[in-house]
């Protein structure tokens, strides 16, 4: 039986690519900063997102000044004290409280007026005065609403409870996919979009530019190496590094931090791979066009990292943006990946979302690959 041997040309193709990939891998292994970006940065991010970022139950530091001498108000202050949502400081001096608000010691103030309990006793609505620090806009929203809900909760258990009537229309709130409204469930998977953008865009933005700056690209071009060899040797090692980093992050989320995962791992990593490819496309395009590490890293930061943090829907809701920006986000890979990965983790596989994201990421990844291929110089005059 004849064994079909590969043609010499094909054989050398494989050998060239293998040699180039080996070289690229050695560069990765020998420079600790590559390992840093693939594993240490994702780790730092996950720890920060787990312990440092919290978008659901925000605890607000508030000052309290009680002008009502009735003894019942003491139990109200106790309720504030025991609440998970407020850290209260009791003041006797209103001016001191205001000064502390100006210098950001407290983020809001509650004043219980002197007619508070007498109004309740007459079964009438009673007001509490709330002052918020408007320069912390987001926190001010919480500072407005938390004291009222805590006070009403107190009311329903206080001696005035028989004077309270239940609302005519009651709202039953249900949160699908995330009953405890734990923001970590969505921000931890979502943060993968940021770390993978880092590897995909920032690291690859440097690799081609570095060869030009050091002059090794010129040395490479004087050999038999073809365009496709150079392009593939840049794509493959960093793709493997990126996927390893993704596996590490997913492992951290699911196993270490117990983030519930309802989806399918195969689909998760397939779409993740497409996302990584499109990010690498962006990074390599920048690198190939600019040929300068300083410029490439700054452009990568401007078009890669900041939009991934700000415009992906991870922290700032896309629906609240002006119409034009909502359309603009449709051209950003992280937006698709954030929406996909949150859905995959919390709701399981929703095919409409999977297919929409995959299609966009695949098309973008392919387009950028073609651009990188076309723009990779084979001659120095380019």
């Amino acid at each position, binding site marked *: 039986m004849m064994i079909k041997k590969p043609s010499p040309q094909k054989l050398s193709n494989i050998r060239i690519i293998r040699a180039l990939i080996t070289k690229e891998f050695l560069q990765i292994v020998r420079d600790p900063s590559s390992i840093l970006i693939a594993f240490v940065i994702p780790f730092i991010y996950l720890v920060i997102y787990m312990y440092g970022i919290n978008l659901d139950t925000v605890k607000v530091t508030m000052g309290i000044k009680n002008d009502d001498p009735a003894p019942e108000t003491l139990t109200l202050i106790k309720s504030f004290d025991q609440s998970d949502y407020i850290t209260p400081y009791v003041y006797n001096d209103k001016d001191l409280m205001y000064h502390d608000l100006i210098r950001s010691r407290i983020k809001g103030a509650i004043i219980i007026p002197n007619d508070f309990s007498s109004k309740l006793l007459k079964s009438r609505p009673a007001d509490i005065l709330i002052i918020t620090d408007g320069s912390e806009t987001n926190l001010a929203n919480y500072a407005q609403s938390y004291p009222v809900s805590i006070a009403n909760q107190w009311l329903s258990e206080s001696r005035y409870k028989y004077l*309270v009537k239940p609302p005519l229309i009651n709202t039953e709130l249900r*949160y699908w996919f995330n009953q405890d409204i734990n923001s970590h469930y969505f921000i931890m998977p979502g943060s993968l979009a940021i770390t993978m953008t880092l590897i995909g865009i920032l690291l690859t933005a440097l690799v081609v530019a570095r060869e030009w700056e050091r002059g090794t690209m010129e040395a490479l071009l004087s050999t038999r190496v073809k365009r496709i060899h150079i392009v593939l040797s840049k794509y493959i090692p960093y793709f493997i590094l990126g996927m390893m980093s993704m596996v590490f992050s997913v492992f951290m989320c699911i196993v270490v931090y117990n983030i519930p995962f309802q989806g399918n791992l195969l689909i998760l990593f397939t779409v993740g791979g497409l996302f990584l490819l499109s990010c690498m496309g962006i990074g390599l395009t920048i690198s190939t066009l600019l040929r300068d590490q300083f410029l490439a890293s700054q452009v990568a930061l401007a078009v890669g990292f900041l939009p991934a943090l700000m415009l992906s829907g991870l922290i700032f809701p896309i629906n609240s943006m002006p119409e034009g920006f909502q359309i603009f986000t449709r051209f950003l890979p992280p937006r698709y990946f954030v929406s996909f990965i949150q859905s995959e983790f919390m709701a399981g596989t929703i095919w409409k979302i999977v297919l929409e994201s995959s299609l966009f990421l695949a098309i973008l990844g392919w387009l950028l690959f073609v651009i990188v291929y076309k723009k990779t110089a084979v001659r120095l005059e380019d």
Partner: protein
Amino acid sequence: MFRRVLALIKKEFLAIWKDPRSRAIIIAPPLIQLLLFANALTMEIKNIDMVVLDRSNTVESRELISRFENSRWFRNIIYANNEIDIRTHINEQNVQIGLEINNDFAGQIKQNKPVSVQVIVDGRQTNSAAIAGGYASQIISQYSNEIDKRPQGASIRAEVRNWFNPNLEYQWFLLGTLVSLLAVITALMLTALSIAREREMGTFDQLIVSPLSSGEILIGKTIPPLIIAVIMTSIMTVLAMLFFNMPFAGSVFWFFVTIIIALLSIVGIGLFISSLCKTQQQAILGVFVFQSPAILLSGFISPIEDMPLLVQKITYLNPIRFFMTITKGILFKGMLPQDIIMNLIPMIIMACVALTAAGWMFKRKLD
């Protein structure tokens, strides 16, 4: 000595400034990002789309739905025919919230009996979900109060005053934060590569064998990026005031003192990182390892009081945290000088430590 340092400063300026591409990359992105993000970003929840299953289909239920239609938070209302419709619309993220009204709705209300409506929120976007759910409850309870003919009961309401920003415009908060954030990013990128690049190119050795002492090299490397970053910050502040009517409540003098000290500490950290690195890649990634946690833990996204105690203590090492407190204090609140100084001291210490460490790294390389 003065002439030597001056020559080095001039050379550093030229290194940054002579290439039109690097000039563009320093000036354009921060300004574009300021205008772009200030327009686009908000943590307010708006344009909520809703799916409604109205089994009651009466004047009362339609009135309730119209309250949603006319509120400033909700955008499109999609009518569903059954529960499966609701599920599909929410699953596929066509809507963020669902409302279900049962067929006994109007009947109960007419008899003054309490009745429930169901609100379903997509918990995948957890922070917006909680807020959207809050808005829905608010609309429903307002409607409930209006049609309620029973005698009044005891309840607690809030009279709210928002200081410094009466209408709680998110854009102001964002502008104050963005200006300091982009200033930090600019200062870091200007310094991060300054030493690593020379080392990769081999020109750092030439600098070392020159008559310049390590202190002089340090001054020469510090001043140009500091000046450029301070100018950029001033331009961004003026732009924010011109285009977005950002207020400026406090003193201009203290504002400049603050940005100079804050950026000096950032430049110091950038130079120190750069002096540790052998290649530009290391320097860029090293800066990243510092920059992104520092941004995330500055109180920009999640308030610092809300973090675990240990993380709160770590944020005392974060210059951006103090920088943002002062910026917002001066711009919006007219913070008093003694409170400004209290926040400046940590940054002064950080600047001294970082610059000394960077200078020491040069000296060590000299030996």
